[in-house]
């Protein structure tokens, strides 16, 4: 199970690698400038977050090409999620209420990523921007201050969370990555 982590500059990108490794996946960290051909045989990829401002059109290396050409599941985290939303015609703006640290998450649809998880739990976020419109995506989870905390595409294997399931203080984070690995196996 090859699931590389594409680095967009997150402080926590190496944690994503660690969680995937602990789940038994074959993972490695790759810069977002990595040519598409080197990732073509992936079973799934994760687009990390980073300080880049997607709402201002930050290009995020070759992430657009990965989304256009890879058929395997792709999970975007934080800025990675925002990039996915923007790539498919959605809108990313400075968050009305930026969230740093503890967030109470409300699961709207226990689909795919949230399979087997409680309806409410604590997650950790660290974001200045948020997705305000996601064309063709289904809402999976929200917080009090931010609607699009997690989504999946209606037709394509594209997933995203604004919060960070890879950090130790997020409850059930490893289970969320476990669910993603399961989606990659299908």
């Amino acid at each position, binding site marked *: 199970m090859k699931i590389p982590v594409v*680095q967009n500059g997150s*402080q926590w*990108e190496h944690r994503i690698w660690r969680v995937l490794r*602990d789940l038994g996946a074959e993972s490695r960290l790759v810069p977002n400038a990595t040519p598409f051909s080197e990732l073509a045989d992936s079973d799934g990829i994760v687009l990390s977050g980073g300080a880049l401002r997607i709402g201002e059109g930050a290009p995020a290396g070759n992430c657009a090409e990965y989304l256009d050409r890879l058929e395997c599941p792709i999970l975007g985290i934080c800025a990675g999620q925002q990039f996915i939303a923007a790539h498919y015609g959605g809108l990313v703006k400075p968050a009305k209420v930026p969230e*740093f640290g503890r967030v109470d998450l409300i699961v709207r649809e226990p689909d795919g990523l949230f399979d087997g998880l409680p309806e409410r739990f604590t997650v*950790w976020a660290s974001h200045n921007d948020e997705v305000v419109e996601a064309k063709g995506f289904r809402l999976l989870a929200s917080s009090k201050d931010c609607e699009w905390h997690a989504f999946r595409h209606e037709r394509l294997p594209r997933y995203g969370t604004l919060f960070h399931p890879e*950090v*130790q203080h997020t409850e059930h984070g490893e289970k969320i990555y476990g669910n993603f690995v399961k989606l990659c196996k299908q």
Partner: protein
Amino acid sequence: MFDAAKFAESKVSELSALQGEGVIAVSGGVDSTVAALLVLRAVGPRLHCVFVDTGLLRKGEAGQAMENFAALGLSVKKVDASQRFFSALEGVGDPEAKRKIIGEAFIRVFEEEAKASGAQWLAQGTIAPDWLESGSGSRDNIKSHHNVGGLPEKFGLRLVEPLRDLYKDEVRLVGKALGLHEKFYNRQPFPGPGLAVRVLGEVTMEKVALAREACAIVEEELESAASRGECAKPWQYYAALLPVRSVGVQGDKRAYGWTVVVRAVDSGDALTATCSEIPHAVLKRISTRICNELKQSVNRVVFDLTDKPPGTIEWE
């Protein structure tokens, strides 16, 4: 899951390929001690351990570290470089500038030691958060860890970092697998730049002495509270001296002294952390002791309630 014994075994065999003599920087903490034990197993007496007394260490720390090394069978050379560190830091208030100066001062000491012993490589106990937070490529610099972002661009030694991909919780498991005592592998982290990052702004010997006493009080009180079951022992706990003065009253006289902040957090890997829940009774004991024992200089104590993010564990 992470298999510590297997990790130790494969690292030792990988490190056995190291040629010639080498120096390892040991601080007395978990990371560098575990790294030293791994390298020692791989190269034996070709490894030279160096402990630098920066003058920025906690109360009794240098002596305690040397005792611990001896108990572990590590032969360590102690270098007193406190004058060098204080001179280099004179007049510098910016936190990033301070960290870079400290990183460079460390490296210069190690270069001198390497030269003396004919070493070609320098081993360090660098772990993942050190380089993650130091920034590189698309990753923003949060703070320059002295052993990564604080390294000068040019220095004449090859770096060996056996724990580079590990986090603190994993290093502790490796320490346990190597037979270290629980008290040692679970000891709280202490930053490489030492008390220099617990004196906000410019570092002076007087201010470091205040931070040292305040840290010792926080450690004593929290450890004794934990041993009595009043609260759990936090993951990391300390005091820092803030460059803020406020008005107070001591024995019917006006006082105008400095402020000490008490910080205690719970974490596993230092990348995220929550503020620890410390009973008010314990915090009040800490506050009273700091204000009484440092009354010449400190007349106010505050408690930091910030999680990471948005805070970091240390204040600089």
